[in-house]
């Protein structure tokens, strides 16, 4: 298995490079239309918005009273002194690290258990663990909000645990993190399972013949081979958790206090509840830079660990 996310998959050797065949009739038209569509769409709906958000982050920008005034780096300076921003940043880091770690560990453990041990009902387990992932977040957040409810929720009525989860600043964020882990771990199970199924069987057999126990096999052969998939899961999770806001919006709206503010939620709040577009854009760019940096670091770690192969 090669690393995921490579841009040029290996081509069959049958088509020698360099000897270009003549373009067939219609090929050029189709290619030009597709390229034009990609360029036009991204120019209008991606590149232009990014540029205009970047410029907007240097402006005092309020759509309600029509203000659009250059203020230089003031939005960024304000960020540095904004305790809500710092709280949301540390919350987001805490949230992402724990949820991603749980996702990878649970995903790997369950996938390995299913792959190595389960003979019957494989499909059943895959389907069950993946179910929450393919369910709409808005609805799920409501169901969990009711599950955490101190009067009608299951923790109170079935388990007798009396904690007002979402209204207690110690428990609110962990409660949302727990729900997110529940919702998302199945994605990692599916991906790790598919990576396990594509492991080279002869290598595993050779190790068994050489007397490697199942733990040694896991530790020294399987886990290193799963490394590219692990990095893939970490990076995609990183990108998606940096953007998580729906569960916050529905379950706590950032409260109690500031205990569940996540960075994407304050962007939503600053932009569409306070209508401070300039400030929200500045936070969005900080988020973009952090995500890009962490992604680059993950790729770097991956490249070093696999000897520059990834």
């Amino acid at each position, binding site marked *: *298995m*090669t690393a*995921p996310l490579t841009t040029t998959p290996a081509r069959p050797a*049958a088509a020698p490079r360099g000897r270009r065949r003549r373009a*067939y*009739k*219609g*090929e050029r*038209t*189709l290619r030009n239309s*597709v390229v034009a*569509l*990609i360029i036009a*769409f*991204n120019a209008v*709906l*991606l590149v*232009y*918005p*990014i540029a*205009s*958000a970047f410029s*907007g982050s240097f402006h005092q920008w309020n759509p309600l009273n029509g203000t659009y005034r250059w203020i230089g780096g003031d939005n960024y300076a304000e960020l540095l002194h904004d305790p809500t921003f710092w709280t949301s940043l540390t919350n987001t880091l805490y949230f992402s690290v724990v949820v991603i770690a749980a996702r990878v560990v649970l995903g790997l453990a369950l996938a390995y*258990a299913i792959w190595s*041990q*389960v*003979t019957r009902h494989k*499909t*059943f387990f*895959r*389907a*069950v*663990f*993946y*179910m929450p992932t*393919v*369910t*709409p977040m*808005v609805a799920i957040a*409501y*169901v*969990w909000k009711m599950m955490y409810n101190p009067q*009608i929720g299951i923790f109170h*009525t*079935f388990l007798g645990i009396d904690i007002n989860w979402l209204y207690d600043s110690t428990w609110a964020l962990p409660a949302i993190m727990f729900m997110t882990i529940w919702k998302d771990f199945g994605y990692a199970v*599916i*991906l790790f399972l*598919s990576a396990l199924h*594509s492991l080279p069987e002869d290598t595993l057999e050779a190790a068994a013949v050489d007397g490697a126990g199942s733990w040694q096999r896991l530790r020294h052969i399987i886990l290193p081979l799963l490394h590219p998939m692990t990095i893939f899961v970490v990076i995609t999770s990183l*990108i998606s958790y940096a953007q998580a806001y*729906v569960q916050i*919006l529905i379950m706590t709206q950032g409260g109690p206090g500031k205990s569940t503010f996540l960075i994407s939620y304050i962007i*939503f709040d600053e932009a569409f509840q306070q209508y401070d577009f300039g400030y*929200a*854009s500045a*936070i*969005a*760019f900080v988020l*973009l830079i952090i*995500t890009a940096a962490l992604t680059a670091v993950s790729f770097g770690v991956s490249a070093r660990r696999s000897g520059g192969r990834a």
Partner: protein
Amino acid sequence: MSKRLQTIVLEGVLLVLGVTTVFPFVWMLFSAFKPNSEIRSLDQTLLPRQWTLENFLGLQDTFDFVRFFANSLGVALAITAVTIYTSCLCGYVLAKYRFRGRNAIFGFILGTMMIPWAVTIIPRYTMFEAWGLRDSYLSLILPAVLSGFGIFMLRQSMADVPDAILEAARIDGASEIYIFHRIVLPMSRNPISALTIFQFLWAWEDYLWPYLMIDSEDKQVLAVGLTTFSGRYGTDYGGLFAATTISVLPVLIVYLIFQKRFIAGAAAAAVKG
């Protein structure tokens, strides 16, 4: 511990975890059939003591729930259809045609998948407002015309379509459009099913964009409708259970029917390279 015993114990552990995973769904479903008095009672059971359809019937009385549902369905289906088609088209060209700039375009598309929504949403909001697209279904569908994820996924799988088949068809005089529709599309059934479910789910659960774009209640989608419902009828737990059940069911049913093909397609997109 013998191998057999080990397997039994492990399957037991997995079963417990599986039951825990589906429990919230089961609880939601059964609670939707309980009268409100029972949902609030101190003495709880999983199964309703008294089954009632009141929660479901009540939804329509206080709220045009059916309208929200139909809007969501229409918008999600339109977005899914458009995205699938463009993803296949772009995926095919990027996988099978060789031209200058191809890798640059593909790299760019990979990059677009990493841009957080927060970066582009404010300018998009002001642009769509300036174009007079506020409160139209077009405003919901337009941003979904191209999907970076979809193109990535379909390109990966279309790279596997053998060149020989395409060449043979060309020699027989088939046009590119014909080859794409009659040969390439049917060969991509697995990734298409996976993308269909993902895209349908994302369109179905999307909250922020319809919340920003749609003002009239009769055009609103279910995800936003749910939040206004719970805001207005904050203590009607039974209604909320019924509403969430209905909003979860379509996606879950489609998933359970197609899950085999879907999982194969979803996994292949990530392992390939």
